């Protein structure tokens, strides 16, 4: 007798197996509800405890990052390195670089209308980064200047702003000041400077180049690139500053917070796995005759395991959805900060994996029981 010669294939249809799993999950309400509640509690507990740590970690790391863990500074302190004015545009074109700009020599400037004040100016080449917020006026075009918030008072620049002129060369044409900027993060020290926009071809050599990397992880690689193909005529006179200390601090903090989170999560997940195991063992024990009957009716062992896992997954998924939603909502309400979506998805995935890995050996054991012992009536 060949199953392919009969009217029926002897192979269950996937759609019908899926419907059977749904029917089974409904019929076995106690097991389904237990799994739903357990997984909801596990996900909720992980998110409100570990999730809080993860959110704190993300916040601290963000603060450290704002202090310049991604910023590389090239400086020509002695003025002999000869950093080419085209360097910022070239560096900005590299992959892994968010932006790059360069600053020229410092020149003392004054307001020709009220010349008792002075401030340093530097030519700027390249796109101004987002860390420079224009709080008054507009961004400068080549030949125009913007003043940092720290120098507007010294140069008597009012709401309509004004002009500046080099103290050492009062005969030169005044440079119009068209805006005021506020520098934040690692560039905050530039608040006391006037920046005069310059095209690369109009600028001479630069004294500083600032490069923002896309990610902390590429800092070392970028540093190596800068050292091997230096944008300076005399690379030996060039100083390359990377935020090694800040990166180390970031790694230490992330590592410590991460270790605490992982331990806590392991405990919660472990307890959850134990409850899932007990629930599944109890459910399969109470369905021994059901398993034996289905084996007699032609269910393969793998089909029995698959339907059992599918039924368990339905309850687990409902619990995971409830638990993560409640956990995220609680975190938002109590701390005002949320863990990343990757963390939430990771917790949900881990919870489902926990259910399946715990349930699989129990279902497999049940499917391998001797059906005759189960089915025979003494």
């Amino acid at each position: 007798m060949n199953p392919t010669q009969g009217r029926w294939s002897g192979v269950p249809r996937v759609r019908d197996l899926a419907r059977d799993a749904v029917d089974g999950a409904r019929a076995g309400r106690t097991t389904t509800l237990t799994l739903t509640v357990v997984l909801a509690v596990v996900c909720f507990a992980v998110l409100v405890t570990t999730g809080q740590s993860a959110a704190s970690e993300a916040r601290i790391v963000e603060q450290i990052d704002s202090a310049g863990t991604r910023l590389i500074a090239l400086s020509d302190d002695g003025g002999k390195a000869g950093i080419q004015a085209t360097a910022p545009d070239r560096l900005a074109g590299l992959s892994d670089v968010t932006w790059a700009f360069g600053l020229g020599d410092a020149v003392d400037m004054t307001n020709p209308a009220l010349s008792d004040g002075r401030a340093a100016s530097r030519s700027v080449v390249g796109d101004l980064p987002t860390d420079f917020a224009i709080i008054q006026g507009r961004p400068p075009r080549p030949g125009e200047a913007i003043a940092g918030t720290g120098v507007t008072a010294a140069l008597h620049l009012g709401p309509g702003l004004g002009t500046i002129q080099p103290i050492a060369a009062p005969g030169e044409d005044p440079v119009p000041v068209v805006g005021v900027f506020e520098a934040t993060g690692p560039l905050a020290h530039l608040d006391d400077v006037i920046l005069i926009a310059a095209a690369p071809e109009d600028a001479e050599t630069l004294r500083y180049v600032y490069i923002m990397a896309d990610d902390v992880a590429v800092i070392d690689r970028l540093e190596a690139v800068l050292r091997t193909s230096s944008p300076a005529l005399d690379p030996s006179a060039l100083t390359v500053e990377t935020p090694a200390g800040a990166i180390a601090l970031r790694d230490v903090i992330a590592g410590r917070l991460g270790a605490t989170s992982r331990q806590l999560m392991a405990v919660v997940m472990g307890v959850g796995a134990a409850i899932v195991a007990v629930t599944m063992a109890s459910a399969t024990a109470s369905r021994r005759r059901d398993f034996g009957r289905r084996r007699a009716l032609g269910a393969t062992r793998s089909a029995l395991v698959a339907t059992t896992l599918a039924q368990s997954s339905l309850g687990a998924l409902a619990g995971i959805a409830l638990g993560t939603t409640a956990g995220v909502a609680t975190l938002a309400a109590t701390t005002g900060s949320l863990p990343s979506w990757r963390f939430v998805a990771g917790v949900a995935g881990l919870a489902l994996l926990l259910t399946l890995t715990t349930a699989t050996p129990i279902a497999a054991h049940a499917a391998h029981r001797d059906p005759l012992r189960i089915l025979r009536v003494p």
Partner: protein
Amino acid sequence: MVGTRSLSFAYHAGAAPVIDDVTLDLPAGAVCALTGPSGSGKSTLLYLLALMLRPTGGEVVWDGRPASTLPDAARSRLRAAHVGFVFQDALLDPSRTVLANVCDSALFAGMPRTIATERARDLMGRFGVEHRGDHRPGEISGGQAQRVAICRALLTDPRVVFADEPTGNLDDSSAEIVWQALTDHAATGATVVVATHDKTLAVRADHEVRLTVEGRVTTRAGVA
């Protein structure tokens, strides 16, 4: 046709065989009764023939081909596609409706659900339990439960039906309905194998295989 070749079976290594060197062929289109005293191995032989147990010696053949040596999944598919089962205590899933219980055998046979539902309603009408479709097994009588089990066994129009003490717990009228259903199905050309200790049923069967506690068999009528 289902048969055995020098079939032996022992539950444990070194234990006395429950079935010992049995060769027989059970013809199609007939009811064959497996009889014998308690412990003679009626149910064991039934489950061996149904490929749910692996022989410790010899083999089970279906249509002349070795079937008991097939992998477990292949044996399961053979059962799903060609076998109907009737158990002594009906063995319905108490958490599902009567209709869902009848359709249970269709799932693993690969029978589409819509066809299964339609055929299940027909069979339930034929056996007088159509009005119980939405009830749970706990809400119907033992006789009705066994009729539901018959519906489940016949749903896929199987070529072989195995019944283990199908009338053991039933009153006379319910037992008669079950017996008639089995003989009617045999009349369609199917092989029906019934393990029973009921001598009155055995007498009414077309063939009889008598087992002894020593694991031997004797046969009556058309059993080779």
